[in-house]
Structures are given as C-alpha cells and as structure tokens.
C-alpha cells in the first residue's frame, strides 16, 4: 500500500531529516510514527503525498512511485489531517468538508449528501454544524470536522500529523477511541505521527520508532513494549504515570 525504499531526504545540505528509510504499510493497516521532535517523522509523512520529495530512494503508493504520479491528483486521493489549525477559518464547516469533493468536481447534491453523512459519522448533527464557522466550534469539534474533511472523497489512505495534539486530555481520549475505531471500521490505511506513546500503543497495529532521521524499530505494540531494540525506544515508549 505505502512503501518506503531506501528513502533519504536532506534539507539545505544539513544533517539528513530522513536517512535510508525502509518501511512498508500494508492495506488497512494503521502505523504510528513515533519519535522526538525533529526526528523526521513529519517529513516521512509528507513524502507520501509528495508535499516533500525524497532526494534518494523511492516512495510507492499502491505499487506506483509517487514521483511518477501527478502530485495534485495524488494528494486529492489521500486524506490528510493535521492539528485543528488546518480548517480554513473563512469557510463554513460545510465548505471545509466539501473541499476535496469540490476540487474533484462533484456536483452540489452529491457533495451535500456526502457532507451530511460524514458529519453524522463523526458525531456532529449536520443541521446544527454545517453552517458554522470553525471558530464557533470547540477544539474537539474542529478536530472531528478536520477528520470528516479528510474522509470526504473516500480515500483509501489517511495521513495524520499529531491529530489529537491540541486537545485536552478528556476530549483527546474520547476522540482517539472514536476515530480510531472508525478508521478500522472503514478499513483505511493510516500512517499517523505522534509523540504520545499511549496514542501509538492504542491506535497502531504497528509502531515505527524514529530517531535522528533513522528508523530504530518497527513492530507491534507488544513487540515494541516487550523487546525494545534500544534504550531510546524504551524511553520513548515509556508511559508516564498520571500526576
């Protein structure tokens, strides 16, 4: 589904942000990218939809190298969720969700139908929320809308960058459970970035731990917790007791 083969990316002749990365994400699999800030996890994510282009190696999506695909249609075929800020503040919830279908040229009726179905799916009543602006929503609601937007054109792949990063702990926990099971239900292939070990352990079928641009370990939550490949992996995956 998504394959990285010997991928290296260096910004402005510095230390490589990602170095010699090999990783495969299977169909319907949910993989968490974990690591400290600056470890290259967001760069890795962005190479899937060609927001960032690799210097060496190859990124393949559904068997095809992304460098041979048209970046615009590639991006429209992949769902993308970032922290709540990604909603367009001058657009209503409806327009935000319909963004990709509109780019794809769906007619208005089909777009509306899809939008209402998605709003219900993420637990927001269409009649109450479709015509609101993002700043009239709570953080959790905004994140739901962002998630609905990513699903709008029914992509088989979802990329998420710290999707629950900006939420309070209670909302985060609820949304994590809800949207996580939704991903699984819909059989989406998901690659998501987080620095929260709990999130990675709960949502990921597998976890890829990165440090300084390199992959330290890939494995199931059980493997990562049971046999951490290094002290760093152990430390990154340590769950702090609630204070």
């Amino acid at each position, binding site marked *: 589904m998504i394959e990285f083969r010997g991928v290296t990316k260096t910004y402005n002749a510095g230390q490589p942000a990602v170095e010699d990365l090999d990783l495969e994400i299977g169909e319907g699999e949910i993989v968490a990218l974990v690591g400290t800030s600056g470890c290259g996890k967001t760069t890795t994510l962005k190479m899937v939809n060609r927001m960032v282009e690799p210097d060496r190696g190859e990124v393949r999506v559904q068997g095809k190298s992304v460098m041979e695909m048209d970046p615009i249609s*590639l*991006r429209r075929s992949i769902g993308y969720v970032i922290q709540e800020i990604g909603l367009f*503040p001058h657009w209503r919830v409806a327009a935000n969700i319909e963004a990709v279908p509109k780019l794809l040229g769906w007619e208005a009726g089909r777009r509306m139908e899809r939008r209402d179905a998605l709003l219900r799916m993420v637990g927001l009543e269409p009649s109450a929320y479709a015509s609101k602006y993002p700043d009239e929503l709570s953080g959790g609601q905004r994140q739901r809308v962002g998630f609905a937007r990513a699903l709008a054109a029914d992509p088989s792949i979802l990329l998420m960058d710290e999707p629950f990063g900006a939420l309070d702990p209670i909302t985060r926990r609820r949304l994590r459970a809800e949207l996580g099971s939704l991903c699984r239900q819909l059989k989406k292939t998901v690659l998501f970035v987080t620095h929260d070990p709990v999130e990675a352990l709960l949502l990921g079928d597998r976890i890829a731990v990165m440090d300084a641009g390199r992959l330290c370990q890939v494995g199931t939550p059980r493997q990562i917790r049971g046999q951490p490949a290094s002290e760093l992996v152990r430390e990154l995956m340590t769950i702090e007791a609630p204070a």
Partner: protein
Amino acid sequence: MILSTVLRLTLQHLLLVALSTTASVLVGIPAGILLTRNERFARPALAFANILQTIPSLALFGLLIPLPFLGGLGTRTAIVALILYALLPIVRNTYTGIRSIDRALSETATALGMTDLQRLRSVELPLALPVIFAGIRIATVIGVGTATIAAAIGAGGLGELIFRGLAMVDNRLILAGALPAAALALLLDAALHRVESALTQRRHRQEVQ
C-alpha cells in the same frame, strides 16, 4: 466662479488619484503575489520600493520630466509618479498579508490537492484581503496628498489653487485648494473602509461573537 473652479479641480484631482491608484492595484497586487513565490527577490524588491518612497515628490516629478515616453510636462508624468508612490504600500501589504497567513493553512490547502492558483484564490487572497485592502487605503490617501504637488508640472488638480495662493500670498486661495484635498482624503478613506468591511463581513461577524 471660484466654486466651479474648485469643483473642476477637485474632479481633476480625483481622476489623477483614481487612475494612478487603480494602475497601482493592477500592478502591485500581482507583483506582491509574485514576491511571495520568489522569496529571493522579495527583500531587494521591497527595498527598492522603499527607496522610491523616500524621494521627495517634487524631486520625483522633476526627475521624470526629461524621461522619454514616461516624462514630459503634464498629466501623464504626474500619473507615473503617483503610481510609483502608491506601489509600495500595495506591494508590501499584499506580500506581508499573504506571508503572514498561518503556514499550516497554506500547507493544508496544498495537501488537500489545490493547485497553486486554487490555493491563492480560495485561501491566500481571501485571508490576506484585510491587509491588502489596508494597503490600498494607505496608497489612496497618500495619493490625494501627493497629487497636490502634481500641479507643479502642469497636471492640474487642487494643487493649482495651492500653488497660485502661495505665489499670490493669498491664504484664501491656499485654503480653497487644501480644504477640498483634505476632505477628499477623508472621504475616500471612509468609502474604502466601508468596501473593506463589506468584503470581509463574514470574518467581522465572527470577531463580534
């Protein structure tokens, strides 16, 4: 008689400002957009526009006179000079307005699969509009003031009364030119302010809540 003269010169003045500001908008906004796409040129280009702004207007009018095509005595030269003055606030505000949009938003637009043009039209320009519009307002108000000096090279406008009043040491004549000019500046500022809030109504509505 004097009233009809004031009226005629006011209209002439308005025309000078309208023509030059419109031209500046047509050139300045695309230029500002291009600068956001070519960061390397942004700094030198804005510095150059800044320098243009510091040339005393009387000197600029004078400097333009000997130039072929652009120069000479009269309206055309005045409009060229006024365009040069109006350019900086418009280019700078367009550039800054787009640049100050949250990076995450432009990035999201790209990630959703918008082309550069779609992103510009549906995300960057609408969000930068208040800042761009503020630039147009500044340019217009500056233009009304600078256009009074255009009379020095025979371009007409309310400056004619002011220069005549200065020459004849007649305060009433000076005021007959200066007061309508001030009124014109205030009026245009208010009018553009209204257009601006109409255009950004939705965002205003949000801020009120």
